[in-house]
């Protein structure tokens, strides 16, 4: 069990903000600061990050001063919901280009519908089919968004193509991949 002080909302929150402020201050130190008269690209980031860092510290100190108490934590249900919803969006982001809209949507909607404890498997499958059909009707047929229903990856042959370049092209994530 963690000591109370580490389970207090404001102590944790303050620590997170201090971490973010320090990181961005560190990154900003790479840019030239310049002078007030001729501000460099680092001037404003350094000032803003320093303020953030100080405010985070202040929040932590005030929370400790008041006497830190342990506060509510995320329940396991929340964590499950969370992973499925975030997973659904991440899946969409990574695969929509390569798989195409139809297969990606089916997976994304299935994953997110499954996150609610009130959806039975039948309900989840029903929702998956209906919502996917609805989205395609609205976005592709009615509004004509330029999205491909099936992407290059749906072509099974590509799965066996061990060409790194084609792989990265299919992902189409540029430098990230």
């Amino acid at each position, binding site marked *: 069990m963690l000591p109370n002080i580490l389970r207090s*909302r*404001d102590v944790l*929150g303050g620590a*997170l*903000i201090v971490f*973010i*402020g320090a990181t961005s201050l560190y*990154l*900003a130190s790479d*840019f030239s600061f310049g*002078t*007030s*008269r*001729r*501000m*460099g*690209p680092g001037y*404003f*980031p350094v000032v*803003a*990050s320093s*303020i*953030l860092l100080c*405010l985070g510290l*202040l*929040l932590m100190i*005030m929370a400790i001063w008041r006497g830190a108490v342990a506060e*509510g934590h995320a329940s396991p*249900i*929340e964590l499950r*919901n*969370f992973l499925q*919803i*975030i997973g659904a*969006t*991440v899946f*969409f*982001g*990574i695969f929509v280009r390569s798989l195409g*809209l139809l297969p990606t*949507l089916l997976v*994304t*909607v299935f994953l*997110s*519908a499954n996150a*609610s404890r*009130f*959806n039975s498997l039948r*309900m989840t499958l029903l*929702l*998956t089919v209906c*919502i996917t059909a*609805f*989205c395609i009707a609205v976005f592709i047929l009615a509004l004509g*968004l330029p*999205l491909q229903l099936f992407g290059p990856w749906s072509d099974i042959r590509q799965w066996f193509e061990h060409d790194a370049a084609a792989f990265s092209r299919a992902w*189409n*994530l*540029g430098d*990230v991949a």
Partner: protein
Amino acid sequence: MSLIDNLSIGLAVAFTPANLLYCFIGALFGTLVGVLPGLGPLASIAMLLPLTFSLPPESALIMLSGIYYGAQYGGSTTAILLNLPGESSSVVTAIDGYKMAQKGKAGQALVTAALGSFFAGSVATLLIAVAAPPLARAALNFGATEYFALMVLGLVAAISLASGSVLKAFIMATLGIVLGLAGTDVQTAVPRYTFNIPELADGINFVAISMGVFGIAEILRNLTSESTEPVRVHKVGRLRLSVQEFKQIIPPVIRGTGIGSVLGILPGGGALLASFAAYAVEKKVSRHPQEFGQGAIEGVAGPEAANNAGAQTSFIPMLTLGIPSNPVMALMIGALILQGIQPGPNVVVNQPQLFWSLIVSMWVGNLMLVVLNLPLVGIWVKMLAVPYHALFPAIVAFTCIGVFSVNNSSVDVLVMAIFGFVGFVLIKLEFEPAPLLLGFILGPMMEENLRRALTLSRGSYTVFFTNTTSIILLAISVVMLALVLIPAIRARRDEALVE
């Protein structure tokens, strides 16, 4: 040019069949998201934003603003019939509106809400038409110094009026500013915080960040508090007011309109705060305050008028100064920028057809909403039968497609996922995310103006204290911040926000 000339420009544009249709779609969709609990105007506007790219700017803005004020109408229906705020600004309406419904007077409450909103909407629209052009002309003379001071005031007001801890709101605004730094520095072309990801060269996509923090994080929050209790909707009853009831609601509606109009203009204000303030005032001036909470018709009339007036007048700083007063207005600015229009005083002057058609459409939209919400209330009640767990997978799918199609970018969707996570953590740590979005929008503008102001003053910060406009704006900021930090006043503010 006179007001009449200007309005006729607006009429010509707003009354084209296409724009009437977009206004109607906006109002209809707004009512829908207002009625459905757990789906707010912010997420809905962000979802529809990508669909507006192909439209001309005025149509896009007409439709998006229709969603915002439409949600104010729809939210009250759910509040009255279900005791659930369909939209956050109708929390107060639920107090007396639901009590009225329990007494079999749901119809009267709905009529009061709709008529009050319509009156307030009309007055506030007129106020925009009268007040915005002179304000914009004054703002045209603003230099970098005044603008920087104005933005400071905007942020300070948003922090002071945010619910919860002032320090935490301050932190969120600053975090927003830091996040807004990502991307290529405008003046020196140095990439900052881009981690060599080419998609981040233009900065973090605004739609992605707002969908993550407000859309995805909101779903996570709703899922946790979800229940399967069957929805019990009260009978609507007769949709008519007696002469006596009608007389009874006139003064609260007028007071609510006034309060809402003023609070809507303030940054951080908008519809939510306006409705709380109006309720408190009605309770104070009433000759029978004990009836409040037991189904007082004034408790519905005042706040409903106020939230709609506030929703409309919050457009004033956005349209005249290019400064958002709440996250929805921040999204509207995002929409303008995506359309290639630089928000600011130039919009009123150089794009009269955009500005005046928006004004005319607001009034037309309000009229449409009365029709949509009164005779058609039965349809909306049926919509309430759709449970949240059937609805939210569609929201996830819509947001994914919407965010992806802004730039056809996978990175944007991943950014949304990351900020969904961030938003969830912030909610858990009780950080209010609204100031973050304002900081994100205002941050780059602040840096730009600070740079210019300091270059002109040869690096001396005293310029902010020698310029009259800037002194006044900064003094107001200091006073506002001092007020919320003085314990006695802070206690009253908390009381007002909690009530």
